[in-house]
């Protein structure tokens, strides 16, 4: 139990980078970009094949991000220059990427079991520090019997993800970032303020998919494999993280919203892990669980709001009635 939760948090933090990408397209640019299902695998494939070709894992992960950036830019170009509907541009790119990913990888599944990965390298250094013994000691004192094999991933990824979050926050507050946000909010206005909305959309969707692919590259290294089908439904997982995060943690400011997205990605993984422990549910039910989660996160806040409103009205009415009877 504890171990699977630990694993869920670990994965959640890595997937949070993908969710931040989805936040950029869906929320900031108001662009429902389905490229994600393809670009996630592109990231995984590029990272895996580069590592197998002897590229250092860190560099391979950056290659993954670059490949995702290109894929996203292409989607943006389809939409802005080709005047294709946003949803359709993403779907077209997703389909095209399926074949491209197969070409990149050469075969449907690549194993990294016998390769060096960013996490294996990290662990070599980490294990010399003895930090694990310290934390596992704490866990043991708390009565845990089985220990996580390493704390390195959770620590380093937390730092990496938070750095990406902070960079995103900063970027969205720069002059360019403000124009990007306005592009998703009121294109006519920002064009009349001399911003090239086409370029902003292309680059914005590019950066979004760079994050998605970077996350894909890390997931491949975390699980020691890349598979052409590993991206199916990724967009919904990303959306689930964004929506759950917003529902739980709010979205008042940019910094708050991005933090919520990271939190949402972790919560999503935890919920899925817990759901899978229910006896009659198995891994095939994951997508259904995800759909129900998203629906719940979308509907509940509105229902709660409506109930609060109703209660407030009833109270007001009751108060009025009370005054009336008193007067009589």
């Amino acid at each position, binding site marked *: 139990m504890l171990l699977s939760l630990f694993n869920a948090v670990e994965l959640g933090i890595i997937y949070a980078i993908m969710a931040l990408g989805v936040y950029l397209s869906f929320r900031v640019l108001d662009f429902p970009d389905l490229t994600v299902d393809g670009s996630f695998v592109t990231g995984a494939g590029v990272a895996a094949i580069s590592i197998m070709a002897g590229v250092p894992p860190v560099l391979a992960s950056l290659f993954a991000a670059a490949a995702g950036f290109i894929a996203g830019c292409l989607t943006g170009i389809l939409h802005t220059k080709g005047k294709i509907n946003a949803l359709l541009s993403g779907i077209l790119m997703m389909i095209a990427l399926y074949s491209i990913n197969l070409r990149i990888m050469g075969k449907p599944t690549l194993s990294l079991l016998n390769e060096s990965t960013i996490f294996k390298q990290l662990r070599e250094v980490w294990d010399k520090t003895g930090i694990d013994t310290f934390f596992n000691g704490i866990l043991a004192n708390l009565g845990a019997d089985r220990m996580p094999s390493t704390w390195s991933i959770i620590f380093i990824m937390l730092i990496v993800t938070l750095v990406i979050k902070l960079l995103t926050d900063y970027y969205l507050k*720069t002059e*360019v*970032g403000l124009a990007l946000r306005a592009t998703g909010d009121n294109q006519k206005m920002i064009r009349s303020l*001399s911003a090239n*909305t086409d370029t902003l959309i292309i680059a914005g969707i590019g950066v979004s998919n760079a994050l998605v692919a970077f996350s894909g590259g890390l997931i491949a290294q975390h699980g020691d494999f890349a598979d052409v089908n590993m991206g199916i439904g990724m967009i919904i997982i990303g959306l689930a993280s964004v929506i759950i995060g917003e529902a739980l943690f709010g979205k008042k400011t940019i910094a708050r919203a991005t933090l919520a997205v990271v939190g949402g990605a972790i919560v999503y993984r935890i919920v899925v892990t817990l759901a899978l422990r229910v006896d009659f549910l198995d891994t095939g039910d994951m997508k259904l669980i995800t759909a129900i989660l998203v629906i719940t996160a979308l509907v509940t806040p509105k229902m709660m709001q409506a109930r609060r409103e109703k209660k407030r009205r009833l109270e007001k009415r009751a108060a009025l009635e009370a005054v009336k009877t008193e007067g009589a």
Partner: protein
Amino acid sequence: MLKLQNVSMTFNEATPDEKKALRDVNLELNQGDFVTVIGSNGAGKSTMMNVISGALFPDVGDVIVDGKQVVHLPEYKRSRLIGRVFQDPMAGTSPSMTIEENLAMAYARNKKRQFKLGVTKKRRDMFREYLESIHLGLETRLNAKVGLLSGGERQALSLLMVTFTEPNILLLDEHTAALDPSRAELITNLTEEVVGKFGLTTLMVTHNMQQALDLGNRLIMMDNGQIIFEVAGAEKQALTIEDLLHKFKEKQGTHFGNDRAVLG
């Protein structure tokens, strides 16, 4: 400052819906001119504004700003020179962003946007000062989302946003039309104030004849895609609404006659 030369624009050419929106329009604005534009619905006023701003490209003709031919430049490039306020109060601002962020975007209109913070301490002070000058108390609400502002407040903010960077040309297309009379008057006064303060070369479309007479140093009347009447200076000062209505009837009469002549 602004020159339109032989500008023509036809919508849906060679279809049954063909509409000549502009017919060989010529117009020249000098530095500091404030020109009001009147004319009936469909006269081509908005089309002319859109051709100037680059939202539409004319079939033929030149648009020259500051001696530079801009007719081929896309809207976003021209908007470095041209500021515009739309009729719809929702159109000129970004509702999900704050007042100071909106101002920061407007501040970058005539500059190259960079990867540095849009709102800095120094800029915030400057924005506050500009907001104070429009007397709506917005300077105390720098971090409020613009979507929360009323239509009048948003229009005042839009007007401030395009004027404080002193565009070479200011285009106002019925920018008070969607507001109630008192707010409309407020925006009208504000317009007069900022245009005067920055000495902006301005083209303002309005359906309010009194406003067209009160504001600016020149007036043009459009009908059926053409400028049918122009007046400036003292002559404009002496003009009354009756004169305008009379002029309009007279010109429309002849245009009606022309059409019949063409048909006959």
